[in-house]
C-alpha cells in the first residue's frame, strides 16, 4: 500500500519493524513496544531527522543500518539487546505549567 491514515493496526500485529528515520515512525513503533531497525539514507535526509535516530540507537532502543547493510543486519541482529522505551510524561509538563500560571 502507499499511504494509510494510520499504521496502528499493522504496528500492533508486527513482530519487527523496518523503517526510515522519521520521528513519527520511530516513536510510534517504540511506543507499541516493537523492535525497530532504522534504515538511514543519508542522501535523502536532512541532518535533523538523523538526530533522533542516532540518539535512540545510542541509548539502545533501535538497530541502525543503511540500505546496503540491511540484509547483513537482518542476518546478524540480536533483538534481545534492545532496551524498552519508556513513555513520555506529559504529567510533568502539566505540573510545571500549573506552577508557571499560578494554579497550585
Amino acid at each position, binding site marked *: 500500500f502507499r499511504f494509510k491514515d494510520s499504521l496502528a493496526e499493522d504496528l500492533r500485529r508486527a513482530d519487527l519493524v523496518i523503517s526510515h528515520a522519521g520521528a513519527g515512525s520511530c516513536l510510534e513503533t517504540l511506543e507499541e513496544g516493537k523492535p525497530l531497525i532504522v534504515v538511514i539514507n543519508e542522501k535523502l535526509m536532512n541532518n535533523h531527522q538523523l538526530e533522533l535516530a542516532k540518539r535512540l540507537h545510542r541509548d539502545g532502543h533501535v538497530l541502525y543500518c543503511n540500505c546496503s547493510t540491511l540484509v547483513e543486519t537482518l542476518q546478524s541482529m540480536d533483538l534481545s539487546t534492545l532496551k524498552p522505551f519508556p513513555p513520555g510524561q506529559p504529567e*510533568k509538563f502539566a505540573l510545571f505549567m500549573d506552577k508557571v500560571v499560578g494554579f497550585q
Partner: protein
Amino acid sequence: TGGHTTEILRLLSCLSESYSPRHYIFADSDKMSEAKIRSFEQKRAETFSNSQFTLDRIPRSRGVRQSWTSSVVTTLYSILYSLPLTYKLKPDLILCNGPGTCVPVCISALLLGLLGMKRAIIVYVESICRVETLSLSGKILYYFSDYFIVQWPDLKEKYPKSVYLGRIV
C-alpha cells in the same frame, strides 16, 4: 503540521480544565491538524463538561527549505495577518512547539505586550525530534519566550536558560 500537532495534543492531554478556552492556530496549508484537534477535543468533552475551543488558520510563514529572503517576506505577511487575530483572542498563555506558524503569533503577542494591550506568557516546547540542535523557530523564540522547554539533556547544556523536564510527549 502533523508531528507538531500530535506533540502539542499530547502536551495538552494532562492539563486541567482551568486551561480554557483553548484557541488553536495553524497554517492554512495544513490539511490534517483540524481533524486531529477535533478528535482530541471531542474526547476531552467526554470527561470535562465545559470544553470550549476555537480553530483559526493563518498563512503559512515558511515552507520546507524556503529561501531566507522569501521566508522573511512570507513571515511578515503572516505577522500582519496574526496581529488582529491575537488582538481579538487576547491570550493569557501561548503554548507553541515549533512549526513556523508559532513565530508570527508570538511576535504579535510580544507587540501587544509592548503596546500595553495584553501581556501573554509565552511557553515554547521544542520537539522531541530535536536532540542536539534547535529548530529555526526554537532559535528565534529562545530569546523571546518566557519559558523554553527542551526534551533532551544535550540541549539543556547548550541552552542554559531552557527548562528540562525529560521527555514530555
